[in-house]
């Protein structure tokens, strides 16, 4: 039983991750407004929020242009659970620019919605502008509740972070095992290492497919399409094709020794090219994908402490699960070898 501790750990971590990533509520935020252009004079707009406590008495709403210029608004009424009606007066010489919304109360902290409105008026200015009569010291509060961070566009799908990203980590881990096994096979020609490479590639391919599916679903909800032409996505698909080619190559050779050697050579060659494709090339071109082409990855500023508490266990849990399945697969291959050839490996 003593060597089973990591399997128990894997099960506990994945149970924890699944429960937490589906039960912890999404943090509060603003998701839209009922009009996007402003006129000078008095404006009345309805702001749509998500999971926010609009009934709190200390709720304040600001319009912001940059980090230091804010315009106070008057909260008129709460239309329904998520909607808030506010009124503000925009001077004619306000700058011709876009306005952000900031909503604030002690419970939810500051909720930020960028580029909510546009103001374009012939009398508008383009220079610096200052509003007085507005206490701006209250903005940028932390949310005190326990929640998954709210991100514009991503919303609830941020929970996919615990599934999509660890799939690729696990795949790389398994393909790394395959590479090391192939290198060791070429140096000592033991069948065991060939079986290890085969098992790792087979399980790695499963995680590759899961990564493609979870990524595709995520892309549908955030980018609007199941598949987009993007260096990161091309890299993922080519990875899949290369390892399918590896399996095809193995099946096309009858002789065991020869198959093991040639498959090992192809695996090493393919891994180096994959490294170029996945790690180096996307950094040289534009990409929608977080973490590539100048886009920040999640951990730059979005991954707050709540998300970290779930994300890191998720990565460890999925990698352990991948390793577990890999071991089962390897034992199966060993038994087959022994059964068919009466050969101990």
């Amino acid at each position, binding site marked *: 039983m003593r060597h089973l501790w990591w399997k128990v750990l894997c099960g506990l971590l994945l149970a924890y991750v699944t429960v937490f990533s589906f039960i912890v509520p999404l943090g509060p935020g603003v998701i839209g407004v009922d009009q996007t252009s402003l006129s000078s004079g008095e404006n009345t707009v309805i702001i749509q929020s998500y999971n926010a406590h609009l009934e709190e008495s200390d709720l304040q709403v600001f319009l912001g242009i940059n980090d230091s210029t804010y315009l106070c608004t008057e909260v008129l009424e709460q239309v329904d659970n998520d909607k808030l009606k506010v009124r503000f007066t925009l001077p004619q010489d306000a700058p011709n620019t876009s306005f952000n919304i900031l909503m604030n109360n002690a419970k939810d902290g500051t909720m930020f919605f960028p580029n909510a409105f546009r103001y374009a008026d012939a009398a508008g200015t383009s220079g610096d502008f200052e509003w007085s009569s507005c206490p701006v010291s209250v903005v940028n509060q932390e949310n005190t509740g326990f929640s998954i961070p709210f991100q514009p566009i991503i919303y609830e799908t941020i929970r996919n972070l615990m599934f999509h990203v660890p799939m690729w980590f696990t795949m790389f881990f398994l393909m790394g095992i395959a590479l090391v096994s192939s290198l060791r096979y070429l140096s000592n020609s033991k069948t065991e290492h060939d079986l290890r490479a085969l098992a790792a590639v087979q399980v790695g391919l499963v995680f590759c497919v899961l990564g493609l599916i979870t990524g595709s679903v995520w892309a549908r909800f955030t980018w609007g399409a199941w598949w987009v032409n993007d260096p990161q996505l091309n890299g993922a698909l080519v990875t899949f094709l290369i390892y399918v*080619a590896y399996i095809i190559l193995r099946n096309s050779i009858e002789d065991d020794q020869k198959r093991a*050697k*040639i498959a090992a050579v192809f695996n090493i*060659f393919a891994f180096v090219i994959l490294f*170029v494709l996945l790690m180096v090339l996307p950094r040289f071109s534009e990409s929608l994908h977080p973490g590539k082409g100048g886009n920040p990855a999640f951990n730059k500023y979005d991954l707050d402490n709540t998300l970290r508490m779930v994300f890191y266990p998720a990565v460890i849990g999925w990698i352990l699960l991948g390793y577990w399945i890999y071991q089962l697969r390897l034992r199966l291959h060993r038994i087959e070898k022994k059964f068919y050839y009466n050969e101990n490996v």
Partner: protein
Amino acid sequence: MKALMYLIKHEFRMEFRQKYAIASILLFTVSTIYVVYQAMKKIDDSNVWNAILWIILLFSAFNAIGKSFSTEQRSLRMYLYTTVKPQQFVLAKLIYNSLFMVVLGLLALGVFSLFLGDGGLGPLKLGTYILGVVMGSVGFACLLTLIAGIAAQTDSGSGMTAVLGLPITIPLILIIMRFTTQIMKGIPFEDNVQNILYLGVLNVGLIGLTYLLFPYLWRD
């Protein structure tokens, strides 16, 4: 070194002795270009021109290099096995395939422009474009030599080259397409040079990998 020169000479001699092999590759390339000509007459859109030229070059490369190991006779291979080192053998193959692909690539570029117009390339950008064709052809040769060696060992022969090679050529294609599209757009060479340097580094890496891995394929 002497053995290397001898092996390269041997490759050329083998190729010219089997004239039908060269003829079939040339026929493939030229007739593909002619089919495109029949379908499109003249291509004015520079992106389409560029894409079709590289598709033709890609498939010509598969066709040409795919059979570079399968045409050898078994007895000859046994003889070479006892006399030269595998590293020398594969270097000779790489050099020969690179030279062959460069000639084929430039020829395809010439015939393609003859039939389908220059796609807005013009004489000024031609020099850098030729550099792109040369580097791309060498890249195809470096990448596909080992793959052809692997495919020759399988039971399904050279048909395997396409299955194994197509996914692997995508990084190379992405770099070379970016380089040549930027030439067509008229972006100055200084802003484009990192792509060709990158291609050069990739080629050197591929040659190194082939050099290290080929000896394991050599014996069977």
